[in-house]
């Protein structure tokens, strides 16, 4: 049975995020945080130091940090892509958005209504909810885009095999009428998207943890998605239950 079709009872859980997915998630989370901070420092270097440049390598370390984090991110993204072929259905969700399915589209609309406070009750999804799935898909695209622009900047006129294979990024910038600094600009613009994504992602996860009907944060640590039992059970269900009992009694 497809893992996405399991409908667990309240209080029950399903193992959705396999270890590689979780490891990938927290790795890139750390990388992105590091990249944000080091990237900001590269764009806006900290207050100038003074001293013997033979011994100080302060800014060089910041850049090196950015490079290393970027490399880890790129490798993690590559591994994640590979894992999608071996992992469960949830692991493929962020790469394929089944927008052609009516059920998906209905869920997508339902999610938007839930976030606009029109629907009083969210759907239960074992994987990502459709709205989140679309957002994850864009974020993954952006991540690859950041890897390409970042490696483009990194390898411009480097002559290793790796560098040469990313020269096309800079040539693309030239062929579009700009130069290497455009690559930096494109990289920054991707960063702007990622900042927005991360802010919304973190907020949504916390919100869902509190208001939604399944677990979120713990799922990414132990992999199990629980449907909340009674604690967050909807009052309508309580009432429905009560009414049901009432009916029985009559």
């Amino acid at each position, binding site marked *: 049975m497809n893992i996405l079709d399991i409908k667990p009872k309240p209080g029950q859980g399903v193992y959705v995020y396999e270890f590689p997915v979780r490891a990938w998630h927290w790795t890139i989370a750390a990388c992105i945080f590091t990249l944000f901070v080091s990237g900001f420092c590269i764009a806006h270097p900290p207050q100038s130091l003074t001293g013997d440049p033979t011994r100080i390598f302060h800014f060089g370390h910041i850049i090196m940090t950015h490079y290393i984090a970027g490399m880890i991110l790129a490798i993690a993204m590559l591994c994640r892509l590979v894992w999608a072929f071996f992992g469960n259905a949830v692991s493929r969700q962020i790469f394929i958005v089944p927008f052609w399915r009516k059920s998906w589209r209905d869920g997508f609309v339902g999610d938007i209504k839930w976030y606009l406070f029109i629907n*009083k009750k969210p759907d239960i999804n074992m994987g990502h909810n459709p709205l989140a799935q679309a957002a994850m898909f864009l974020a993954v695209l952006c991540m690859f885009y950041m890897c390409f622009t970042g490696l483009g900047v990194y390898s411009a006129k480097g002559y290793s095999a790796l560098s040469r294979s990313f020269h096309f990024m800079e*040539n693309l910038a030239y062929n579009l009428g700009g130069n*290497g*600094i455009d690559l930096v600009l494109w990289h920054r613009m991707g960063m702007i998207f990622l900042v927005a994504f991360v802010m919304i992602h973190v907020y949504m996860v916390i919100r869902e943890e509190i208001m939604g009907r399944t677990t979120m944060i713990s799922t990414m640590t132990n992999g199990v998605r629980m449907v909340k039992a009674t604690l967050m059970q909807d009052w309508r269900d*309580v009432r429905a239950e009560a009414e049901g009992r009432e009916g029985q009694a009559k």
Partner: protein
Amino acid sequence: MAKRAFETHYDRLRNNGVSRRDFLKFCSMTAAWLGLAPALATNIAHALETKPRLPVIWIEGLSCTCCTESFIRSSHPLAKDIILNMISLDYNDTLMAAAGFQAQDAFENAVLANAGNYILAVEGNAPFGNDGMYCIDGGRPWLRRLEAGAKHAKAVVAWGTCASWGCIQAARPNPTDATPIAHIIHDKPVIKIPGCPPIPEVMSALVSYVVTFDRLPNVDAQGRFAAFYGQHVHDQCVRRAHFDAGEFVEEWDDDGAKKGYCLYKMGCKGPTTYNACPNTRWNDGVSYPIESGHPCLGCSEQDFFDQGSFYSRIKDIPTLGTMATAEAVAAGVAGTVAVGVAIHAATSCAFHLHEKKLKEQAVEEAKIEAGVQEENRKDK
């Protein structure tokens, strides 16, 4: 034009009083300077001994003549030696003696006499606006001269950023529709020597390379002379150590500036500019912009006038009808998202508390109801 006497560079040098010993020394220095194996010095000597001077036709479109000015600043080889000994500069608006139709004749003669053998050196670029009549030459669009010159050329050299990329007149909004040479000439090799202007010795290095080896030099993917445009200014910079150390000029003439710290924070474009400035330097190796305290403008790069302020590393992004820096856009997006999240969170809290209240009420009611039912059952 007079009948060509077959005189080689070597003859010329000998006639000018250069001894064979000095000549060979010159050849080995040229080899060293071009980064060639010492053995190739003999090739150079052989080439110069057996070939007539290279015909060069130098035409000038929309430009500021800074390329010609730069060319005559060449120190090694000296400009006068290039003009008198290495090449035959058969047409050049700024230096040639003839004018008017005699100049036009000189052009046509040079093209005919050297068809297929001459180098067409192009300074500036061609406007397409107003049927090309933003740049008139002999009563006709200058574009016609470019086409006529390119037709029989062995190769085309695009001097400077104008010819290579478009430069100032092609900067936004490009009022004359100025178009770089490589976008006009497709059937000949076009070698770009960008820079506004290019470094004098890089210009003359191209000339001596072609004269010496009788072939065109390697170019990179963008058509630039690979030997001089393969590295960023940043990677060769004398102030690079300060960059790595995190030692920056914070404002003009501050303590860091007096110690020669890195100009990155002042908007230096060195990290994305391909040129040989820090190594070859300017005007006989005296200095280059960063060494003299000003950030690199990126003048050898395509579109360098349209990258926002010269004093900021952060390029502008065209937004609705105006320009904003990437920084402003980032702040705007992050701010909007933060505000959106805050509003949504507040609404969610209110919603959640309301729901919770309703739920508690329902639970309470249910309990009461259950209690009532219980009592009823007991009563029964």
